[in-house]
Structures are given as C-alpha cells and as structure tokens.
C-alpha cells in the first residue's frame, strides 16, 4: 500500500484497462472501471474499488454493444440485480505494468464465468490438467 500511496498515478492512464494479476501471478481480468466514493468528511473522491468483468465493461462501452453485454451479464448472473464485480481497492499491492492484488483470483466475483467454463467444458476434456 505504501508503494501506491507514495506515487502520483493517473487513474485514466495507469489504472484503467490494465491487467489484474492475483497473488499467484495469474491473470484475473482487466480494470474495466473504477468505483469512486466521496468521503463523508468532504474532500476529493477516492478510489474504493476496481470494477471488473462484463458488468463493468458494458457501462464503459455504452450504446448497443454495451446494452447487449449488460443484458447478457444480468441474464447469466445468479443474483436478481447483479452490479459489476467489485475488487476492494485495499487488496491492491502494486500498480506497475500490471495491477497486482494480494488475493487469489478464485476468491473474486469476476472469476464466475471462468469457473463455469473450467467445470463444465475445459475440465472435462482429457489432458486439461496436464
């Protein structure tokens, strides 16, 4: 965290659209959007979470392709009104070429589709674990 706090970073350029890498060095989605919160005590908004996955990307795309992706996300998601997948900004370890986080991707909400594909498609093909 201190590493992040010391440097001035441009959220649009150094954070947005960057690759997220989990604690095991696995690729875990892109920074599709950022959640900004205005502190109650006032002052400039701070980044409280990384938003990732189709739910977040859909809003960035806008227009028809965004609406299509949004409806796909809502339809396939188990909960009634799913928002975009959140990754609390507190788990961010380092912002460099990639955005490194301190948790495993298997604990992230954004990995839902990946888990499904692993369990139902790719994991069933012989040799997938070798």
């Amino acid at each position, binding site marked *: 965290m201190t590493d992040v706090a010391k440097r001035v970073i441009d959220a649009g350029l150094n954070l947005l*659209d*960057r*690759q*997220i890498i989990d604690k095991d060095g*696995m*690729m*875990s*989605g*892109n*920074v*599709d959007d950022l959640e900004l919160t205005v502190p109650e005590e006032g002052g400039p908004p701070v980044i409280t979470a990384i938003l*990732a996955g189709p739910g977040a*990307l859909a809003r*960035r*795309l*806008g227009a028809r*392709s965004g609406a299509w992706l949004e409806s796909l996300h809502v339809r396939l998601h188990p909960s009634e009104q799913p928002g975009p997948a959140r990754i609390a900004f507190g788990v961010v370890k380092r912002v460099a*070429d990639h955005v490194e986080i301190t948790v495993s991707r298997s604990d992230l909400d954004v990995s839902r*589709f*990946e888990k499904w*594909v*692993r369990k139902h*498609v*790719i*994991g069933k*093909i012989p*040799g*997938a*674990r*070798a």
Partner: protein
Amino acid sequence: MRKVLEVSLETLAAIGGFVDIGDIVANSETGARFRMSLAWGGVLGVIGIVLYAEMSGRVATLSHRPVFDLVRERLGARVALVNLVASFFINFLTLTAEIAGVAVTLQLASGINYLAWIPLVALMVWFTMWRVKFSVMEKVYGLLGLALIVTVVAVFRLHEFHTIVREATNLHRPSTEDWPTYFYFAIALFGAAMTPYEVFFFSSGAVEEGWTRKDLMVNRANVYIGFPLGGALSLAIMAGAALLLAPRGISVDHLSQAAIPVTFVLGKLGLGILIFGMGIAFFGAALETGLSGGYIVSQFFGWQWEKFVKPVDAPRFHLVILVSVILAAAFGLTTVDPVKVTEYSIVLSAAALPLTYFPILIIANDPEYMGDKTNSKFSNALGFFYLVLLTAIAIATIPLMIITKAGA
C-alpha cells in the same frame, strides 16, 4: 555456441513459418495475371511486416505485455472492441482458409476429396494447440516448412533470372488489366504479407517464452533475416507463375494450379516436396491463427491466456480456441471455395491493421516502457509512412472490391 545454434534454428524456422495460404494464393494469382509487374506490392508488405513485427516483439519483451493488451490500454475499451471484432473476423477467415488448405494438400496427395479431410485436420490443429509445447510447435512447422525452398530451386532451373528482375523493376500495368484491378491485387499481395495475426502471434509468443533484453538479438535475427527470406519464397512462387502460367493463359483458381510451375520444372519429386511444404506451412499458420484468436479475445477481457499454463488454468482462452476451430471446420465444410476465402481474408487484412499498428508505434516511443530501446528516427518515419499507407488502403479497399467485383 549454443546461442548461435539457437538463433540460427529460430531464424530458419521463421523463414519456413512466414509463408501461409495467403502468400501462396496471392503470389500465384498475380504472377499468372500480372507477371512480375506487381512484385513491388509483396516487397512493400514484407518491409511493413518486418518493421512492425520487430517493434511489437521489442515492445512485448520490454513491457511484458502483448499487442492486444496495449491496444486496449491506448485506444480505450470502445475503439479496442471495434478492432477486436474486425481482427477476430479476419483471423477467423484466415483460420478457415488454412484448415481447408491443409485438407486440399491432403487431397492432392491422396486423391480423397478435401471435405473428408477437414474434420481430421481441424482435430489435429486443435490437439496440437491443446497439448504441444509452444517452442517445440513453432520450431517444428517452421523447419519442415522450409521444404517450400523447392519453389526457389524451380525458378533457378529456368535460368530466366534477368527476365524476372527486369519485369519486377519496370513498373507497368499489363494492357489486359485495368487500373482498379491492378491496385486491388497490389492490396492483396500487401495484405498477404501483413496479415494481422502475425503481430498478435509474434508478440504473444515473446511474452509466452518470457523474452528478456538478451533475446532482443533473436528477435532482430528472426525478423530481419527470417522474414525477408520467407518473403523471397513468396516471390519465387510469383516468378514461377509469371514464367510458366502467364504465357499459357492459365489462371489460378485452385491450389493445384499453384503447383504447376514446380511440377513442370522438377517433376513428381518436386511436386511431392511442394505439397508437403504447403501442407506444413498451412498447418503452422492454422496454429498461429487459432492461437491468435484466443490471444486477442483473452487479452481484451484480461482473461488468463498463455499456453504454458495448464488448460484448466486458462479455460476461457482454450474455449475460444476450441469454438473457433469447430466453427472454422464447419464453415470449410459448407464447400465454400478455400481460394475465395483466402482472397477475402488477405484483402481485408490491410484494412484492419491501422487500429493495431497505431498503439504499437506509440508505445514503442514511450521511454516509461521501453527505457533506452525506443524507436529510432528512421523506424518512426517508416512506421508513420506505413500507418498513412494502411489508412489509405483501409479506405480504398471496399470501393475497389466493388468496382473490380473482387478482382474478377
């Protein structure tokens, strides 16, 4: 010594790996119709791909990030999505053409109709991507693809080298063809050399193999030596068609006609070697395009890709590959003409390139990523020239396609 051996092996593999069905079709067709008068189109394409492949390899090595990752970062999600859809579509056409192309070479070798071979070829292509190690895969088809040198041997045996050089250096349009058709085929040759998958595959490969600054020498050797020599193989195919097909008024509508010059000069043995070389070259390109489809989709969404992790650890990447290969095989089985699919894929290639090459050029100048390895003034001038040229081509392609009825 080991390093020298490794570099020469890789460079040799780069020569054999350079040629694909687009190069064979475009060069035979234009040789048969325009003799050597369009050789400049191929040369222009080879210089362009050398320039941008070197840049993308260098960028991937120093930033540890492949091309489509950077496309998304620099162009933003929306424009990058447009690029993704266009590139994926063209890449899919190329994948279909390569799979069908391998099947046609098997038909030429066995006499059994190519449609019967498509499912088997698709299965082999998929299985290789599923199981075989990246570095092994790349070297094997690259080295075996060197069998295509038989095309150069055939041209030398004809002892007409001065005719080829004279025609290639004398820019003129044959009186039997009009200007739109002439430029349409120039775009085809240009696009055949610069197909989008090449930089996707090359830069993703650099990340897969974990290239470091030490490997920049290998990168340069592959690109500066391997690619132009691969381009020379393409020109030999054009020359063979110009010398033997053009005078007899034979046009190339089928891959077997592309094999006539070598067969004429070197007989059955030559034909056998050529068919083997073509089959391997198309198979290698099918692997490159199949993987590229998985690479660009995964890189756009930030999914785990890389071939060196187990498939269960990159399930979405492997899903994209699996679905692409199945759909390509299905499209091939509709009896769509493989040569026509190839023609459309190469002509549309050039049109899709500006949105990929622009971010590469920008990042290659960013010292934050590149340190002391940013572009030279010369690379920048040339890079900018190609960007302007590609944009002009992107605008001209569709109207030319309509005016010339796709070069008919």
